[in-house]
């Protein structure tokens, strides 16, 4: 699955590889579904000595959503990077960098070795930075620089935690670590370090400052991917560590994460409402949506985890669609100022539909994927009697509704000003729409991904919730 790293610069090849990876993921999915969690020892050495790959329901789901989103982005990019305003010299680098990013994501979701995860994190971070900088403007470069520094800082914190864990337990494999783990000062410090490093990369509330600029200034398909998956990758590692390695009874810490998540929902929502540029709005919306993921920590129950994961999945799909729609609008009108979004509906019905459908999922209206996720979270919150979480989830939904309707409202407003417009390739519109529909469909087929999550369930210990 890693053999597609060669920097061939042909678009067709990119698409072929994309299809190949999707097929591989599907095959793996079938295997996992049939046979349960899979473990693959690279080099045949087995866990303590070599590096194991590990695929259970959680990683499979991540891989699948990864495959869907990446396939979408690949198709979209064939259109996007064709445009005249992208110098060809830049555009040719998109594909190899993009393949690296994708490979890093796949490797990350499959790895079960904490040092290997560090290397994949770096691979992911560097390729993401290079992709952000591809946009080439002053904003993009500055935010890419900041993003790079943040990434490196986060990785070093993580690596220091890895060092402590290794020297305490003499192993790097997650499964082996989880069997040996016991609370001790070193473990606590390692946990603190790794958590702060990963949360920095996940952009949880006080550490979110780098995200909006980086995500908004990148080329549209790249922003889509950054918001949809790259931040989730570090969240995924965090979740793995939290559920499998660290002593889970640290409820104070969980509460803290929950509070930060709650603040993130509010802060992101309010900021999103205040933005005048569409891409910034969507980026802040990501900050808010990431907050939901952390609401599960204070509850730490079966439903809560499932809800958070479900939000993660549907947000990945919906946010990709949104950024693509934003890219279309940007391309169409040459700007993304929300106030000047007239006629968009007339000229780009597909894009507007995509944006609206994705918005439904972000707001959490039925029958979308976002609704199911929020419903599960709500149920968990009510079950555990944490009413403040209920209020926050509902408020967050209202805020999301407010900023999304703001955009849609402007898009429907007629004005007589004439604009310079350019034609948008039809496949760019369709990919956005299809992904948005997928986000909605996710709600309708909810039992299926929920069942997949149960394979090799990492959070079965708390299934009582």
């Amino acid at each position, binding site marked *: 699955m*890693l*053999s597609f*790293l*060669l*920097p061939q610069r042909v678009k067709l090849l990119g698409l072929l590889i994309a299809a190949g990876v999707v097929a591989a993921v599907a095959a793996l999915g079938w295997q996992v579904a049939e046979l349960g969690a899979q473990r*693959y*020892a*690279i*080099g*045949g*050495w087995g866990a*303590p*000595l*070599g*590096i194991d790959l590990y695929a259970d329901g959680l990683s499979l789901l991540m891989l699948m959503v990864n495959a869907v989103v990446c396939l979408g982005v690949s198709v979209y990019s064939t259109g996007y990077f064709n445009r005249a305003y992208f*110098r060809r*010299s*830049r555009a040719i*680098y998109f594909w*190899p*960098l993009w393949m*690296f990013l994708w*490979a890093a994501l796949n*490797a990350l979701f499959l790895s079960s070795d904490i*040092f*290997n995860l560090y*290397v*994949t994190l*770096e*691979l992911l971070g*560097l*390729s993401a*930075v*290079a992709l952000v*900088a*591809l946009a*080439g403007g002053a904003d993009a470069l500055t935010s890419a620089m900041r993003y790079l520094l943040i990434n490196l800082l986060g990785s070093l914190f993580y690596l*220091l935690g890895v060092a*402590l864990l*290794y*020297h*305490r*337990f*003499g*192993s790097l494999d997650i499964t082996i670590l989880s069997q040996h783990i016991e609370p*001790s*000062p*070193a473990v*606590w*410090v*390692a946990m*603190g370090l790794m958590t702060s490093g990963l949360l920095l990369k996940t952009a949880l509330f006080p550490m979110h400052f780098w995200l909006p600029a980086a995500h908004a200034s990148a080329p549209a398909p790249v922003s889509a991917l950054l918001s949809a998956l790259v931040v989730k990758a570090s969240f995924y590692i965090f979740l793995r560590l939290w559920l499998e390695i660290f002593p889970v009874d640290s409820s104070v810490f969980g509460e803290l994460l929950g509070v930060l998540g709650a603040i993130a929902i509010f802060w992101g929502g309010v900021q999103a409402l205040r933005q005048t540029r569409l891409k910034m709005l969507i980026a802040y919306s990501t900050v808010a949506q990431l907050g939901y993921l952390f609401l599960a920590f204070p509850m730490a129950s079966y439903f809560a985890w499932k809800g958070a994961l479900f939000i993660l999945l549907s947000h990945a799909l919906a946010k990709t669609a949104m950024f693509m729609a934003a890219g279309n609008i940007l391309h169409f009108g040459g700007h993304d100022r929300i106030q000047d979004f007239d006629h968009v509906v007339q000229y780009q019905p597909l894009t507007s539909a995509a944006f609206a459908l994705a918005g439904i999922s972000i707001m959490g209206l039925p029958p979308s994927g976002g609704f199911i996720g929020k419903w599960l979270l709500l149920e968990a919150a009510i079950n555990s009697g944490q009413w403040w979480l209920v209020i926050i989830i509902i408020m967050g939904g209202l805020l999301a509704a407010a900023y999304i309707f703001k955009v849609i409202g402007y898009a429907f407003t007629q004005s007589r000003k004439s604009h310079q417009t350019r034609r948008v390739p039809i496949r760019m519109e369709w990919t956005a729409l299809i992904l948005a529909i997928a986000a909605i469909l996710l709600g309708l087929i909810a039992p299926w991904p929920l069942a997949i999550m149960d394979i090799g369930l990492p959070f079965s210990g708390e299934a009582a919730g």
Partner: protein
Amino acid sequence: MEAMTSLPLMTLMQLLFDTLLGFALLWLGWRALASPDLFQAIVLFIAFGLLMAIVWVRLDAPDVALAEAAIGAGLTGALLLTTLARLEAKNRSKSALEKKHKVWLMTENVKLKTASFLWLMVILMLLVSGLVYAVLTLQEQTFELQMLVSKNLESSGVSNPVTAVLLNFRGYDTLLEMSVLLLALLGVWSFGGIPKPHESLPGPVLNMLSRLLIPLLIIVAGYFLWVGSDAPGGAFQGGSVLGAAGVLLLLVGWRLCIRFVGLPLRIILVFGLGVFVSAAVVLIFLGRQFMEYPPSVAGALILLIEAAATLSIGITLAALFLVGRPEFRRHK
């Protein structure tokens, strides 16, 4: 170090040496970060790297020492210096802004408010005390893994345990690491045209030096590669020496013939990774696991992979030094 208690003088000397080295390291690190002149800071950083290499030797990690000296101090230093030169070349071209830029090149401590400075200090102190506490209370680990490494060393095909870990047991890490290197180059290239540094013609001495040194460096790279299987050394060390040779060549003003800049260069760049991956994949078809080298040919296989890797790493590092894709240079 209790094993040495029979020689109290020796232990004392060693303790003294280690303490001195440790403090020198901290001091150099501090100076490198606080020195008002950037050039000086970089030079101090290079000295810091060399000192690190000595520390690695003290810690019985000769492989790391070689890597640190060649990559950590040497190449990183060269990269930093060339960047500085490019930044300053930029300055010179905009003479009107020169004064302004001068300021930017100097240390610019963000004036923190006292309150936030205090907060920062408190947080850092917490961090330090937490870390120190954690380290000091760290129990002795179990040495199962180390035992496993030495037990499996024979079937790994090499007798240097570090090489065995790097290329066999944890070869997947190394594969990804080489991808990181290649990715970095790709990223650097994708940034497009980069201002040229102020280039001066190399004098006769530098020319002479490079003529003498480059063959030597290439031999050394080969030597590292060869001994890597049973003594300190290996692909990364060899590759970085090769990279150093490349840097020297570039310094002398040697440029690749246009003919080689396009596809051939790219092929060399991906060669190492390509061999690595294809060796791993071919083994799948031979009915083994991904990257499972059969013990009988493991040694040869590792050497082959390492040779390819050395070449690619060397060229990649040299190309990183050049900053910007070679093709762009001829348009200027």
